[in-house]
């Protein structure tokens, strides 16, 4: 059988089957690229043992070709975290929203990003859907390493071991908006150096390119009364260092993120909230805006599959804060009453 009949159209609302009119204007749909043809009838010639009846039972309704224009094509791929040139190439394709995840060694930076990615493994997360990644292998490996199910006695996160600035690509979409997140994947030692006075432009050159910053505070240390004052002081120095010349641009949104919140009792939490407020004021003075505080546990000991506080942090990251710039004042112009009829 050489001819196939049209059994539908992949375009929603096309009346081709009702009255023969084709949305693309093809006479009775002949030649229309969106027309769905009776592939079952055509295929029976070449598939031994398959009757027309059996093929027809699958029906066009189940054809994978059906879809809507609203569907988002999800790009999967990639291996390790991205070097800056790789990320640059990706940014030219999808754009980028660079999130600098800053904090001292083992403060929970990697776990936080892995668990944000994990949110999308269960479907939509905070109203956003996964739209692709070129760092899928790394994100997946890091996420699964964190889970007890992975077989480890003590699920743990491999530390970031790269000596250069790297980024993790995670693209999400919600409605018409696509957010191409690129989370930094930078060793804690670089941030330690910044806290100790090293120039931010040399240690963390990515800071100047960041669209938002998460400054992580290790909850485990905050829970230790011998370490917590020093930890908060180092965080303050880190914010100071990041906001030096060559670092964060003015008005970069900054979140002070308490990690491992589950390690703190109520008294410790109250103490931290009070201290975080001072840090918040300090960051605002240093030119960051807005500045928020979040209490999180990306991988709580009690319930490792249920992160605490990440939803609100992610929603904060997704907020559309962009405001158009005010245009420069107009040049002096002739003003005629006719042009000012609204006045």
């Amino acid at each position, binding site marked *: 059988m050489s001819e196939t009949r049209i059994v539908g159209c992949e*375009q*929603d*609302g*096309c*009346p081709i089957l009702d009255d023969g*009119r084709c*949305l*693309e*204007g093809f006479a009775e749909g002949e030649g229309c690229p969106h027309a769905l043809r009776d592939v079952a009838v055509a295929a029976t010639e070449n598939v031994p043992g398959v009757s027309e009846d059996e093929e027809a039972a699958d029906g066009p309704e189940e054809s994978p070709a059906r879809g809507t*224009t609203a569907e988002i094509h999800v790009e999967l791929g990639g291996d390790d975290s991205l070097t*800056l*040139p790789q*990320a*640059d*190439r990706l*940014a*030219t*394709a*999808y*754009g*980028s*929203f*660079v999130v600098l995840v800053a904090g001292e060694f083992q403060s929970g930076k990697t776990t936080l990003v892995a668990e944000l990615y994990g949110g999308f493994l269960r479907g939509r997360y905070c109203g956003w859907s996964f739209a692709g990644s070129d760092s899928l292998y790394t994100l997946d490996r890091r996420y699964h390493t964190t889970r007890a199910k992975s077989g480890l006695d003590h699920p743990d996160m491999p530390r970031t071991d790269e000596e250069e600035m790297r*980024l993790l690509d995670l693209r999400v979409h919600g409605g*018409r908006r696509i957010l*191409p997140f*690129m989370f930094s994947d930078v060793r804690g030692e670089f941030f330690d150096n910044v806290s100790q006075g090293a120039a931010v432009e040399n240690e963390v050159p990515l800071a100047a*390119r960041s669209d938002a910053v998460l400054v992580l505070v290790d909850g485990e240390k905050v829970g230790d009364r011998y370490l917590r004052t020093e930890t908060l002081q180092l965080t303050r120095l880190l914010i100071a260092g990041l906001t030096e010349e060559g670092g964060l641009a003015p008005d970069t949104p900054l979140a002070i993120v308490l990690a491992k919140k589950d390690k703190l009792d109520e008294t410790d939490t109250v103490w931290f909230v009070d201290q975080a407020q001072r840090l918040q004021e300090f960051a605002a003075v240093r030119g960051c805006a807005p500045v928020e505080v979040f209490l999180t546990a990306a991988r709580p000991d009690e319930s490792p599959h249920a992160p605490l506080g990440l939803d609100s942090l992610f929603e904060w990251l997704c907020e559309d804060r*962009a*405001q*158009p*710039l005010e*245009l*420069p004042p*107009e*040049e002096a*112009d*002739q003003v*005629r009453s*006719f*042009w*000012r*009829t*609204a006045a």
Partner: protein
Amino acid sequence: MNMEFIDDNLARWLKPALIEEDADRLDYYRAVAVSAEGDMLGHELIAVLAAHGRLGPEARNWLAGHLAKQDDTFVTDGRDELLRRLAAVAVATAVSGRSDGVAALAGLAARSAAFAGLDAVIQELPSIADRRVAQMGRNVRSRVTAMAEPLSVTVGKQPTVKKPAEGEAVDPTQVAAAVTAQAQVIKKLIGALDEALPAAAGRQRSLDEEVEMLWWVIRESDESGKPWASQSGVERAVAAAAELAARTLVLPGPPSAGHLLRRLLANEATENATIADLAVEASKQGLAFGDCDAHVLLPVASCVRLRSEFGTATDEETWQNAVQNKLDVDPKRAASLAEGSEQVYRELQIARLLAQ
């Protein structure tokens, strides 16, 4: 609007498409945008569409040519976000730096994109377009004072010709020099008049347009004599836009056009209508948008066209599906009647500019 604003913000606009910034790359991209801006004629709509995230193959090829002109090793495949942003910078540059039909068309198209619900990849583009279209509308109607000073020409020393005595024969060769000198004076005077008259004619044309629009806006009925007050809001919005467009002698229209339409719509200006409502009414009134193909940047005109193709007396759904499928524009998108009327007026201007 000055070009400094574009230069000052180039890095910010391109930032999402760049991780590694450096001055050389920015200079390169600036040169590409300028090159594309210089080649905007005929590419206005695809450029504006790309500047709103809809990068088609035609726009990709157009930009690829300008990227290759600056650096023939540049690979454009898979760099859609960068191309969109470069298109947006090129459009912003054209709208800001030129004052011709290209700038008017690009500016009007950018405003049209906002009406169709498209987001510009650089946020300031709608404001830039809005301001510049108004500014161009003012500039083409500026009242240049023709012959502000008494018309005069400077002539050199004229040859002396002795007045012949009565009855004395005149030798033509003796007066030839004088005739030639007088002819030169007349020629100079004609030249001066030629320079002055276009300004006077332009001024007269803008005054004619202005007076006609003002009389029109205080009339109580439309061209056919039907009182405005007896017409529904959407009927008035469409008819008013068409009648104002017919009175617009130079493009883009005057900055007061929106206010005139609002005044005519009175209390109904704030009522809502969908793109489909406007199109149905425009079809009924037989509005002619020229031979433009269905295009995202002409949402009302496209709805009229697709309705004529797919609509029937009993089916108002199919053509709306066609609009959604073909253009990815929601025909049920609502706006105030004032905005809708301005959009119809805008599309009629775009159609005229495209025809030119």
